């Protein structure tokens, strides 16, 4: 691992990768990358590279898990062994299991689960390269792949984190900032309904700082949302352009 840097924010107010406090990392999103999945998406946020795939709604196996009144949403968050500096064991860790649950619960309110009883929807999130804030990027990508699969949903879900680094509230933490910094607040949002579906906090913040962090994270979500929407539309608009 690289050495712990002394200063996370320099005299000019710039962060380790040259960003300002309220600036996002560059984001690229692509939809429909996996031909075998019902829906899929790929997100490249800073150094994060994440693939999300959706299968279903389909017959649920094992069958005893099926519910008579709604779909069962299942999610598997997994980090590739080569996604971090030190090789990560491919077996699901405590953290992987927690993130799977957190991602599932962030997406559940957006999906009309009651439309297809006795079935299951499987979401697979594979982190190919991790650089902090993977849960947020995963939620953004997984929500897109649900839309790409044609699952009826109330709204897309966008996620973004804010945190405290060197006594400053900053947006979209990268790996070092996440580990060395004081606090991290990931937030997931359904932008059109203005509803928060995920809110976590890791670290210590005063009430004022917390409020500031949440608002900054929400602002970040609203900045990512248009990109997410464009990515979803791009798959179909491209066909149009070729023809005209």
């Amino acid at each position, binding site marked *: 691992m690289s050495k712990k840097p002394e200063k996370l924010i320099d005299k000019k107010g710039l962060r380790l990768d040259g960003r300002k406090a309220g600036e996002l990392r560059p984001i690229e999103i692509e939809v429909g990358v996996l031909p075998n999945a*019902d*829906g899929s998406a790929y997100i490249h946020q800073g150094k994060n590279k994440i693939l999300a795939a959706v299968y*279903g*709604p*389909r*017959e649920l196996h094992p069958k005893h898990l099926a519910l*008579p009144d709604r779909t069962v949403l299942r999610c598997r968050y997994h980090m590739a062994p080569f996604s971090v500096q030190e090789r990560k064991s491919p077996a699901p860790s405590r953290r992987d299991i927690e993130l799977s649950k957190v991602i599932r619960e962030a997406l559940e309110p*957006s999906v*009309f689960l009651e439309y*297809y*009883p*006795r*079935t299951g929807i499987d979401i697979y999130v594979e982190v190919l390269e991790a650089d902090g804030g993977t849960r947020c990027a995963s939620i953004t990508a997984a929500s897109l792949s649900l*839309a*790409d*699969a*044609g699952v*009826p*949903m*109330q*709204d*897309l879900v966008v996620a973004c984190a804010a945190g405290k680094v060197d006594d400053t509230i900053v947006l979209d933490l990268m790996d070092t900032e996440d580990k060395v910094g004081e606090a991290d607040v990931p937030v997931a949002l*359904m*932008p*059109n*309904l203005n509803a928060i579906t995920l809110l976590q906090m890791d670290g210590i913040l005063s009430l004022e700082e917390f409020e500031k962090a949440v608002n900054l994270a929400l602002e970040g979500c609203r900045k990512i949302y248009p990109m997410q*929407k464009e990515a*979803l*539309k791009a798959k*179909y*608009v491209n*066909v*149009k352009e070729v*023809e*005209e």
Partner: protein
Amino acid sequence: MPTFFERRQLVTPGDLLAEGAYIPGENTYKEDKKIYASRLGLVEYEDKKVNVVALRAFYVPKVGDTVVGTIVEVGFNGWTVDISSPYLALLRASDVLSRPFRPQRNDLSEVLSIGDLVIAKIVAYDRAHDPQLTVGEPGLGKITRGQVVEITPSKIPRLIGRKGSMISIIKEETGCHIILGHNGIILVTGKSLENEQLAMMAIRKIEEESHTAGLTDRIAQMIQEEKTKQEGGKEK
């Protein structure tokens, strides 16, 4: 009572489509007098009704639909059929065999075995039960020849066209017999392999470009071009 998009504009889930006294149609939902989209698709405002024509969707069974399915399991009293929907369909043995049968004596896999394709009609389906099929009508039953193409089921209406204009062009031009399963699986049977391939090519093109204007004319043109190409190839 404003509407927020133009007709046939691309919308994503969660987009606010209309506000006020509108009725939510397909792929939309209403909350607090506001109508939102629930799928990626094209908006259609039809009087007071707001619809979204989905670009990506899966097949939800409906009683009376004709579907093309694959046998995935042979049981004691019938077959399980994959109709590429969230639910597996059931085909009862008593429906296929007109004579009385005994599970001990008759081997059902002699009639239909795993992997066989069938054209069937949905006779019963609701939230609590899997769809049930019948083959007891003319034109239904096991598929013995032809080729199948799979498309997104929401595009079947586009493939049919206004009053069947699109599908009749393909049928006429290629001389193929085409059966549209409402579940998005299409059976093409023609006199020759070339004809079948031509029809399949046209169907795939329609699927890809279903949301563009003037498609019927372009398809007719494409089939003509391909036909002359094929004829030219034969002469050489």
